[in-house]
Every structure is written in C-alpha cells, then in structure tokens.
C-alpha cells in the first residue's frame, strides 16, 4: 500500500526529537525551543494530512515489522487511531508552549523536554498500535518516559510520588503482559479488528473471562479505575505541564483508550456482553465516577481536587465503552477528546495560579478572578463544561452517554450521570464562587507586573483550549468535530444507530 511509511514517520517525529533535545546543552534555550516547536508543528501538520486522507479518500495506512515473539509490530492509521492521535498532537503543541513558559530558568530543562517528547512518542505509538502487542510495547514505554517527569522536581515528595507511580504502573504493565501473552497463545491473534477479533470465538469462555480481567486490571491502573487509582493524586507533585499532559493526553487516556480498543476491537462489545463482562465493567466505572467525585469534594488542594475529578471523568469513557450501544460509544469516544480539552485547561489554569500568586489551596482563592481574569475565565469555561452545562463540550458527551444508557436498557446510567454532574457542580462551583464573588485577600489582591496578567506563553494555551471547549460543544455537528468523528468510528464498531432520540 502506498504511504505505508507514514505511520512510522508520525511516530518518529517525536521519537527523534527526544534524543536531539537530550543532546541540547542546558543553556541553548532558543535551539531547544526551535526543535520542540518544529517537531510539534510538523507532527500536527502530518496528522491533519492523514485525517484528510482517511476522511475523504478512505485511506488506511499500515506499517509492519516482524518480531521474534508474539506478533508483528504494526502501526496503522484508522479513524480510532486518528481520534487519539490528533488529540495528542494538538495538545502536545499547546502543552509544549505552556511548558516553555512555565519552566523558564528552571534546571534540567533538556531532560524535561526530552522525556516530554518521548512521552508523546509513546502516546503516538499507543494511538497507532494495530495490535495488542504493539500497544503493550508503547504502553510500557509510556510508563518509563513519564517517571522522570513525575519526579522532575527531585524533592523527597516527588520521589515518593514517583515510587508509588512506578509501583502501580509496572504492576499493571505486568498484568497486561500476562493477559496479552495468554490471549496470543489462546486465540492465535492479537490484532485489533473492527467490532471484535473473530479469532476469539474459538476460545472457551472461562479463559476469555480470565484474560479480560487481566487486561482490564492492567489497563485500569493507568485509567485510574477504582481501586487502582491511588497513584494519580500522588503524581500531583509533578510540575503543572506534566499534570496537564498526564491527565489530559498521556497516561490516563492511554489506559482509557486501551480499554476501548480491548472492549471494542479485541473482544468486541457483543462478545463482552455475551460473556457477562460488560455489566460488571460498567458498574465499576459507575462506582469510580461517584467515588472520584466524592473524594474530590473533600480535597482542599486545588490540584488534588482536579486529580480526583480526573478519576471520575475518565471513567465516563470506560462506562460508555462498556454499554452495548453506539450512542454510548460515541459519548465515550467524544469524552476522550472533550475531557482532555477541559482537564488540560483546568490544570494549566491551576498552574497559572500557582505561578502568579503561589496559591495551591481552594480556600485561598478568594477574589482571584480580579488578579487573573483571563485565566479564571478559561477555568470557568472548562469547569462549567465539566459539570455539563449546555452547550459546552461536557454536555454533549454526557448527553450521548445518557442516551446510550437508555438505548442499552440501563437507565440507571442516567441517574449516575445526574448524580455525578451534581457532585461536579458541588466541587467546582465553589471555586468559581470564591474566584469571582468573594473579596480579594492580601494574597490575591496584588496587581500584575506586566501588561498581561501573566506571560503569554502561560495564558494563550489555556485560552485556546477553553475556546475549543466552547467550539466542540457549539459546533458539535460540524465535519471533523469530535462528535462526527466519533460517530464515524462508532457506527463501524456497532452498526445499528437507533432512530429517534438522537440523529
């Protein structure tokens, strides 16, 4: 097939950028920034080209490399891959700009940006993986590449967070490895096939159930599914751009994306339902949604509150994938993107607050809206989106998820979503209330030193993502919106879009 080399090129861009940045001397700021931005822009351009080709020419690209054990290394571009790929490519550019500003004059920047690129390369590999084997390879690479970012500050707390992170993720990776090996020897194929790999039909149900449990346990660690979510709040010691990346694009999304791949394209949702595994998974996701929200309520530290909110929000994706309805799947796929946009905005804003006024606790944020009006505007948009206020991004995905629940005769899903939205409001609205309607304290009353409230590199990225949060909700039906792309994928996986409710 022509263009079979394209997937490897997309992967190589960030993979080659990483050693280049490592090799850059610490003080060569301009050179490093150039390499960083060139790579990010180049990649975004290539992803846009691929999206165009896949959407209009119906093109599919696949690149294979034989390996000695397991299966081939396969990188392929399909609509589902592109959904995740474009999210990571786009947010990589924004986070890089943000990180350049955030880490100005900080030590070890070459190391930081090198691992940052490596982390994005791993995410790209996860998106492009054409079988579970390839997925596993990049999933482990992601673990290794993020560890140095988590411990970047090199404080004892950072090291402790890193240790917990590694303990969770390496154990998860091990379970995933066993599940994958087992699946490979039982079914003889690890390929991702639309609507499920037919090779699994010949395997006995008990083996399949055990494999499913292993795979989900392995993926659930990164997706922060209860009870494997413990590492996420600990990893909050990382610098703000890392938290943004971890929560929006890289780690938790890799887990959620993996769950979608396994449920939809390895087992197939039909087989998952037949094995009786879909409902327990949906139940676990629902529990995590509520549990994460309740925990978020109790946190006074802003980043920890947002972290628990991620625990809850990522499970929306899992919940949607576990329901046997194209609508729910559309909701899940969309939320993969929407949650990324909203959460990255929130984390970048939290980073701005920490950077500008050195405040970390929610209870200290009285009147911060006057000191950082643009930052808090972006924060407000993203927070309202999280709660699900129409017409913002979160509303659209929640709507589809709820419709999917009804479509699958699981109306309790609607209750879960309502309860969760209520809890979201309970832990996010007080922040907005404090920021905008309370009198400034001594800490928040100061004036900005420059013309802008904070450096433009720190301000522009959250404003762009906040605009996107509005855009993807308002223009949800436009071509190339997450909704239309998710619809394209979901109708492939579950080819029966119900009439009525939503067209």
């Amino acid at each position, binding site marked *: 097939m022509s263009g079979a080399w394209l997937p490897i090129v997309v992967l190589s861009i960030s993979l080659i950028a990483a050693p280049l940045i490592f090799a850059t001397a610490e003080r060569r700021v301009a050179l490093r920034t150039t390499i960083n931005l060139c790579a990010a822009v180049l990649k975004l351009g290539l992803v846009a080209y691929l999206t165009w080709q896949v959407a209009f020419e119906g093109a599919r690209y696949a690149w294979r490399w*034989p390996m*000695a*054990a397991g299966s081939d290394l396969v990188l392929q571009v399909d609509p589902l891959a592109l959904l995740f790929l474009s999210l990571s490519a786009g947010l990589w550019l924004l986070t890089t700009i943000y990180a350049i500003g955030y880490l100005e004059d900080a030590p070890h920047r070459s190391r930081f940006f090198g691992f940052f690129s490596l982390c994005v390369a791993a995410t790209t590999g996860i998106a492009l993986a054409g079988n579970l084997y390839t997925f596993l390879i990049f999933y*482990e690479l992601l673990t290794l590449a993020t560890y140095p970012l988590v411990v*970047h500050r090199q404080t*004892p707390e950072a*090291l402790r967070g890193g240790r917990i992170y590694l303990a969770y993720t390496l154990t998860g990776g091990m379970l995933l490895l*066993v599940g994958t090996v087992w699946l490979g020897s039982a079914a003889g194929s690890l390929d991702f096939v639309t609507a499920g790999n037919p090779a699994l039909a010949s395997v006995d149900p008990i083996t399949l159930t055990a494999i499913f449990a292993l795979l989900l346990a392995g993926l659930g660690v990164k997706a922060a599914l209860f009870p494997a979510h413990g590492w996420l709040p600990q990893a909050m010691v990382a610098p703000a751009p890392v938290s943004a990346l971890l929560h929006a694009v890289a780690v938790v999304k890799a887990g959620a994306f993996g769950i979608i791949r396994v449920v939809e394209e390895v087992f197939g949702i039909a087989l998952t339902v037949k094995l009786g595994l879909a409902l327990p998974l949906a139940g676990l996701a629902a529990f995590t949604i509520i549990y994460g929200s309740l925990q978020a309520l109790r946190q006074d530290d802003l980043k920890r509150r947002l972290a628990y909110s991620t625990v809850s929000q990522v499970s929306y994706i899992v919940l949607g994938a576990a329901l046997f309805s194209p609508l729910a799947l559309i909701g899940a796929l969309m939320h993969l993107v929407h949650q990324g946009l909203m959460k990255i905005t929130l984390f970048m804003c939290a980073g701005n607050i920490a950077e500008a006024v050195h405040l970390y606790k929610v209870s200290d944020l009285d009147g911060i809206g006057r000191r950082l009006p643009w930052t808090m505007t972006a924060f407000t948009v993203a927070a309202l989106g999280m709660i699900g206020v129409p017409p913002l991004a979160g509303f659209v995905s929640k709507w589809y998820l709820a419709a999917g629940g009804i479509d699958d005769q699981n109306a309790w899903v609607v209750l879960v979503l309502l309860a969760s939205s209520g809890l979201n409001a309970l832990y996010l609205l007080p922040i907005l209330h404090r920021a905008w309607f309370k009198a400034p304290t001594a800490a928040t009353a100061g004036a900005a030193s420059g013309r802008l409230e904070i450096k433009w590199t720190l301000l522009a990225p959250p404003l762009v993502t906040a605009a996107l949060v509005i855009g993807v909700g308002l223009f949800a039906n436009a071509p190339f919106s997450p909704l239309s792309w998710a619809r394209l994928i979901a109708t492939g996986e579950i080819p029966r879009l119900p009439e009525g409710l939503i067209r």
Partner: protein
Amino acid sequence: MPPVQGLRMSDAAGALLAGVDWAAVAILTPLVGGAAAFVLPNRARAIGVAASGATAAAAVALVWLIATGGPYDLAVGGWSAPLGIRLAADGLSAALLGMTNLVGASVAVHVALTGRATKNDPEAGVAAWGFWPLWLLLLAGLNALYLSADIFNLYVTLEMVGLSAVGLAALSGKADAFKAAMRYLLVGIIASLVYLLGVTLLYAQYGVLDLATLRQVMIPAPATQLAMVAMLAALAMKSALFPLHGWLPPAHGNATAPVSALLSALVVKASLYIAVRLWLDLFEPTGVGAGAVATVLGILGACAVLWGGLQALIAKRLKLVVAYSTVAQVGYLFMCFPLWAGGREALTAFVYLAVAHAFAKSALFLACEQVQRALGDDQMSSLSRPELPGAVKITFALAAVSLVGLPPSGGFIGKWLLLDSTLLHGPTVWTVAVLCGTLLSAAAMARVLARFFAPEEQAVAQDLVVGDAASWRFSLTPLLLAAAAVGIGLLGAWPAELVNVGETVQ
C-alpha cells in the same frame, strides 16, 4: 531444517566464506594471540584487540554460514567419531558463539580504550600483562566449548574456561578479590571433578564420548542416571544455580569491571550451555532424564529468581546489585528446563534471555567502572551525586529495560516466550514466579535509577578525576552494549529461526 529465511548473499561471497574453516580460525586465533600476548607483554594490548576482533569476525562468518547453510560438522583431521574428535555447531551453539564473540570483542575494545586513558594511573584498570593472555585463553576455551561435540572435550574446554576465569578474577590484586578468586577456584575444581566423574561413568558403560553416538546407545540404567545427576549438579554449581550461588557475588563483585563483565556475561553461560546441550541431546531423548529432574532444576531456578531479585533489591553496593541480578537471571534460564518438553519455544526463550543478559550485564559492569572512577566508590547512596556522567545513567536505564524484560528489548522477547511457555506447558505457579521475579528485578533496577533523580547533594569538596572519568572512552562501549541489549528485540524473527537450525529434539 530449512536455513534462516531472509538472510541472503551473493553466491561468490558465499563461496568465499565457505572456503575457510571458520571454526578452526575461531579457536586457533585466540590461542595463538594469547601466546603472543604472553611473550610480548609490551605489545599485549595491540595483539589482544587484534586477536579478539579477528576471532569475532571468524565467529560471525561461522554463524552466518550456519544460518544460511545449516549445521556445521567437522571431523578434525579426517578422523570421524568414535576415533577422532568431532567439531559441531547447530543453531543453539551458533547463537551463543555469536554472543560470546561480540560481547567479548566489545569488552576487549573497552579495556584497550580505557587502558590508554589510565596509563599514568597504575592502580586503575586491569593489569595488561595478565589480562590479555588470560582473556584470549578464555575466549579460545569458550569458542571450543560451543563447538565441541563430545562430553570429554566439553570437560577440557570447561576447565580451560574455568581456570582462565579464576586467573582473571584474581587480577585486580585486592585482598577481597584474591579471597573470592580462591573460593571461585575451589568451587570450579570441585565442580569439574564431579563433572569428570559423570564423564567417566558414561565412558565406562558405553565406551564412547561422542554425543551423537552416545545418544544412540544410552539407556536409562542406574549408573547412567547417576552420571547425569553428577554432571548436572556440577554444571549447576558452575552456573551459580541457587543454592550453589554463594561464590558468585563476591567473585563478580570484587573483580575489576571488565573481568566482572566477562565472567557474568559469558562464563556463566558456558556451563549453562553444556547443561542444556546434554539435556537436549542426551538425557531427554534417551529417557535417562525424567521430568522430575527437569522440574527440580526449574524449581531451583524459580528460587534463584526470587532470592537473587531480593538480594539485588537490598544490596548496598552497586556492583553487588548487578551481581545478584545475575543470580536471578541464571534462575530464569534454569526455569526453561521443565518447559522444553513442550516445544522449541522455551529454547528460543533461553537463547534470548541469555544473549540479552550478556549484553545488558556486560554494559552494567563496565558502567560500574565509570561510576567507581567518577564517585570514588560504588555505594548505592553515592549514586545521587552530581559528578555522575549522563552517559552512565543512559547506559543503566537501557540495560535495566532489558534485564527487567520491558519492551522492546531482547529481554522482553525472552520473557514473552518464557511466559508463553509457562502458560501453555507449566503450572500457574510458574507464571507467578516469573512475574514476581520480574517485579523484584524492576524494583531493584528502579532503586538504582531513582537515585539519579534524588535530591542533589552539594558536590563533595574533594578532587575527583572527573575529567578523566567523564571521558567518552569509558562510556562508549557500555552505551553501545546496552543499546544492543535493547536492539536485539527489534531484530525481527531471524534470531529465533537461527536457534532452530539443526534442531535435534523432536
């Protein structure tokens, strides 16, 4: 067996390659080189590097011929067995031969590179007069061992390897090293004698030493079984299988770095290879070796994985962490024994684990040398000091990836195949042991790597040879070896096919 797919060359080049007996070259070159290096100590370094390089080239040619043309078999001097000596190599020997020569030549180059850098420092480095002759003798022994096809030749070459290894271990001149080398010598001699006892028992019963001939006449008589137990026990001792591993950490931990690299990466594999060769060619097909024997070896292997992993996790010195990790890795290799009945997969796993370990472990030991020189000691607690060169950290990270078995390294391929085998043919507890071992080694390696990110202390105010220790001469070879350990996993499917060339087990 069909030769390996995908490897091709022009007929002319093939004929040229086939015209020379590369096996003889691979054995004789280091022997002659070793003698020359002993006679001309002033030229020892040049002779040593040239001989190691030439031997490696010959070995690569031989591996190539085996991969493309099938197993190698030569009756030396035209005398065939049982009268003459037979040299033979199949895919398994070829893979280990290639590993030995590539790693060996890299270590030799490293010694030459760093030897020049430390000329003015008599304490540092290895004693050139002793290293080169001993190393070349060791190399000749290893190559001959992988090419031997009878149980007595295997004994002779094993002795060659063992004695030169002891000499190398004692070279650093420290009292600790000397003591460890003495213990190593003692263990080696006892093991050799026990092995020889097995050989004698077999010879007394059957009157032949050639593997292929023995295989045809051997029957599961009690004396044969006794011979088998003696031989396997001796080889397990030489390979430091738990609980006979006590000699290894001090011997490997106190020798100079290049020697530790050679001992850990190559010497341990030689005795393991003999155990595998005897098991696959003799004991299993003739029914002498019951499944229970293999199971015992496997259980001891599993214990080694756990014990070695645990010791590596709590060791206080970096070199001991690395040495105990060898104990654990040897355990994985022995865990393959009970799985061979299930098919060739476990053998491929064995080769991948062995080869990846050789590259990664030699990289780690060589990197230890640089740590020692940059920091003055190799205590774990010193590792967070800022004097440590970046190349060392990268080397450690890459080697750790392969040792733990994370993708896409050679160690990962080995672990994948091993897990696959355990899932198909072993009890569940086998899988669990592999996983626990992996987690332990991950923890041990993470403990080392996390030090690189530890809160930075103030640089200790003492004059260290930083400029010297940060030199590329110290970091180049370990870095390349570690990268190779990871790269082996990406080589594609041909190494696995190579292992299956000349398959003798049904």
